């Protein structure tokens, strides 16, 4: 029985407007094959995959407090599974992507058991070492090209769809679908009871456990689910790249450092942050990448400047100025009138 | 007439957009014990953080021994002889008890307080001197915090909620020791919730209410009614 003159809301006007705008944008994006050029579609596809990686990493680091610098382990694992399952298992690429996710979840279980014994910076370094073990391990598998790497046979790519245009649309839709799926899954999860528990763990583990939260299990679930999705994204990435090698598959720069850059620049611990971060990252890359060393130096400077001037990221800056929340997660107590 | 050691002139303090102190005027004379009382959130801790430089404040809002210490960093203020026993103890967990005490001496001021003097005041600390400071009980930690502040031989020492979480016997000991702790010429500002206790040890008292001074007076003359009015405002 509620005797107080207060009530609780979880939405806002801005969020409702944003939802409508989001739906319109989604329809426009789905229709991209009819209005965008091939290069644009490929670029957007890549952007969606990075967005998915960033959203997943943000779930782990921004909400579960699991700062991993080893997610490239699952990107590479997923990529290698795509190659192995299609080349040796004869699977259709789409089936291989799904199975890569399941295998990613399975392999992440023993890894989690091991690295969950570590905290904070130790955890971060531990995940990195695990990813290195994956890299060096796959470098020993000569069937997959060992340290030399391997190319995806053209026939397998063509089995996705025989027409080039169809294939390109399909890759694009897969990437878009992945991003939409990942973002909605994370959003719904965070609004759920388990999501609330996750945020509590991030803030204070001792208090969380004494309030009935099974810390290990909650983190474990997040880790395994994130790894599964990451492996699927990895498979999608290497379906586009067509070629895999240990250094490329398990690149800490490409699959983790840039992802951390995206999330932190955008605003960690918010769903909006990775979206903004991804846009900024691609904007920088597309305009400056031809400058070579200068581009990389600019990237480094941006990372430093944003961190110093806006430690909550760009979205944090926007939010503090306008009190905006597009994906409302919190609760607000208001007085009933 | 005793010399005035600290003067606050229209002191303001902010946490981001939130203003916690509004034009606070206070002074404390050398050798005096000043009590500051006030409800929770009145701004007592904020006042102490401003004096010690942990919160920034403007020029000429705080004068120590005649000099403006408004814009100085906390470590510079400490060197000038202002020490604090913070709310909630806040010891250095990776230092032993003895090292916690010794770090207090690092400002390099001369005076009567050294390790031996502190051990004499709190003998249990000598027993525990090589233990990690966090493994002490709350009360023992409070003793270390007091000892640590004394080690810097300050001329002004600030106690924020010194009896919070202490057993009555310890509180009694500490208050009994207070005149000895303060000694010749050292002044103290005490923030205390136990009003009776605060009035008993101090010569003057200020009451804060929502960031403003709502009462000032000699401790032995203020009345209960005045205090409770100053606490909660006039309804």
């Amino acid at each position, binding site marked *: 029985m509620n005797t107080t003159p207060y009530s609780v809301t979880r939405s806002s006007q801005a969020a409702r407007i944003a939802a409508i705008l989001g739906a319109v944008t989604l329809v426009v994006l789905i229709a991209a094959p009819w209005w965008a*050029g*091939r*290069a*644009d579609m*490929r*670029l957007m596809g*890549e952007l969606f995959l990075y967005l998915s990686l960033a959203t997943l990493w943000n779930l782990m680091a921004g909400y579960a407090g699991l700062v991993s610098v080893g997610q490239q382990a699952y990107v590479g694992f997923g990529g290698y599974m795509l190659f192995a399952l299609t080349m040796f298992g004869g699977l259709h690429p789409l089936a291989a992507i799904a199975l890569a996710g399941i295998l990613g979840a399975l392999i992440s279980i023993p890894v989690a058991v091991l690295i969950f014994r570590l905290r904070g910076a130790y955890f971060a370094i531990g995940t990195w070492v695990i990813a290195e073990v994956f890299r*060096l391990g796959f*470098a*020993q598998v000569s069937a997959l*090209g*060992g*340290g*030399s*790497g*391997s*190319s*995806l*046979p*053209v026939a397998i*790519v063509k089995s996705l769809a025989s027409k*080039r245009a169809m294939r390109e649309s399909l890759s694009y839709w897969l990437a878009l679908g992945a991003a939409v799926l990942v973002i909605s899954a994370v959003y719904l999860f965070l609004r759920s009871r388990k999501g609330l528990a996750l945020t509590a763990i991030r803030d204070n583990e001792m208090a969380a456990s004494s309030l009935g939260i099974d810390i290990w299990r909650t983190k474990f679930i997040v880790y395994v689910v994130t790894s599964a999705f990451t492996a699927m994204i990895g498979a999608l990435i290497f379906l*586009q*790249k*067509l*070629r895999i*090698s240990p*250094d*490329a598959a398990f*690149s800490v*720069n*490409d699959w983790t450092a840039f992802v951390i850059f995206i999330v932190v620049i955008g605003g960690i611990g918010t769903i909006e942050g990775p979206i903004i971060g991804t846009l900024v990252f691609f904007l920088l890359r597309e305009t400056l*990448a*031809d400058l*070579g*060393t200068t581009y*990389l130096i600019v990237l480094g400077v941006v990372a430093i400047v944003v961190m110093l001037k806006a430690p909550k990221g760009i979205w944090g800056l926007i939010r503090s100025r306008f009190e905006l929340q597009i994906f409302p997660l919190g609760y607000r107590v208001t007085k009933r009138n | 007439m005793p010399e005035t050691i600290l003067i606050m002139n229209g002191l303001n303090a902010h946490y981001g957009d939130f203003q916690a102190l509004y034009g606070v005027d206070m002074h404390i004379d050398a050798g005096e014990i000043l009590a500051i009382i006030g409800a929770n959130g009145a701004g007592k801790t904020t006042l102490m953080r401003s004096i010690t430089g942990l919160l920034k404040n403007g020029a000429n809002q705080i004068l120590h021994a005649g000099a403006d210490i408004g814009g100085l960093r906390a470590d510079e203020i400490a060197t000038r002889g202002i020490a604090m026993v913070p709310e909630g103890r806040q010891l250095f967990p990776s230092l032993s008890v003895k090292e916690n005490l010794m770090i207090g001496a690092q400002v390099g001021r001369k005076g009567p307080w050294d390790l031996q003097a502190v051990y004499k005041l709190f003998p249990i600390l000598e027993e525990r001197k090589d233990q990690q400071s966090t493994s002490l009980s709350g009360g023992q930690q409070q003793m270390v915090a007091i000892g640590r502040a004394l080690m810097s031989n300050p001329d002004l020492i600030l106690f924020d909620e010194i009896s919070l979480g202490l057993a009555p016997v310890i509180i009694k000991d500490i208050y009994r020791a207070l005149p000895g702790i303060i000694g010749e010429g050292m002044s103290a500002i005490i923030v205390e919730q136990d009003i009776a206790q605060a009035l008993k040890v101090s010569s003057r008292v200020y009451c804060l209410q929502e960031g403003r001074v709502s009462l000032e007076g000699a401790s032995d003359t203020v009345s209960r009614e005045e205090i409770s009015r100053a606490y909660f405002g006039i309804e």
Partner: protein
Amino acid sequence: ATPTLKVGHVSPRTGPLAGFAEADDFVLKGIEAAMSAGLENNGKNWNIEIISKDSQSNPNRAAEVAADLILGEEVDIIVAASTPDTVNPVSDQAEINEVPCITTDCPWQPYFFGRNGVPGEGFASTYHFFWGLEDVIGAFLDMWGQSGAAKKVGGLFPNDADGNAWGDKELGLPKPLAAAGYDLIDPGRYQPLSDDFSNYIAAFKDAGCEIVTGNMIPPDFATFWAQAAQQGFNPKVVTIGKALLFPSVIESLGDRGDGLTSEVWWSPNHPFASSLTGASAKDLAMGYTSESGRPWTQPIGFKHALFEVVADVVKRAEDLEDPEAIVAAIAGTNLDTIVGPVNWANGPINNVTKTPLVAGQWQKAGDAFELQVVANANAPEIPVTADLKLLG
């Protein structure tokens, strides 16, 4: 109006392989000057626009920029050079997008088998010219034969595309070495950027090796070479691929660089000239040295030759609007370039043709090191410039 033909170019301008592309700007400037008046095709003049992108020595990035050139810039021909890390991802993107592609500066086995090429089938749109492991082996055996060193060879092969190809039991060094009566001591594939080679050194010492060979990156070789001396291992001949290509590496080794041997794919003394500019190998190399103040490097010739082939293809293609016609023109190439003849009809395998290879030794002349050709049995047209000296 003059139509424009777009050529995309990918190379590792930055990152650990940047040495291979250090002369890119110089070479491209020369090529652009030579093509400034346009090229004639079927009586029509075409502008040539070269768009160059950096792979950052990273295969992921190489695939991205290749896709970008193909889909975004819609280049008509794509070219790439310098190690499998750049060549293979670019070729793969070209193959799937059916864009004509020419590559070089990567032994053909890692190019062909590294891309899962099937002998007899090959690829549809992608072509490669360089030498192969059989040439390296031939040149090395030729040189070692002159040395009189014991026929015990220590092998140092990393677990990367080149190392695996060189050390491969079937296609690499082991079989031909055995056939020529050499004992190859091969402890296995090490991971690049290892900090310790004592186990190799111990194994080579135990076996009494007097020759060391392999394919390494410069820091690994430097580590090995210092440790070898510290641990009392002094071979008579050290012949290493890749690591010993660049004069800067040899200089960094100081006196210990004197007498090291390597394969030579191109040098100012090669008796070839550019089909595009008429410049001789010497002209090209000296041009770079005088412009940059840096010593010449072997990739300069191949980078230049890559665009010679492009120019030749552009002139001959039946229809420059049609990728298939361009591919047909590539396949029909028969051109004498600054690195030797390029003719895919003579290839050892589909889509691959080979240029001549000799063996050379870094010899100290005054203050600087010179790469002297010391063995040329497989390419006698390239003159020997000095005799092989033994180490130690």
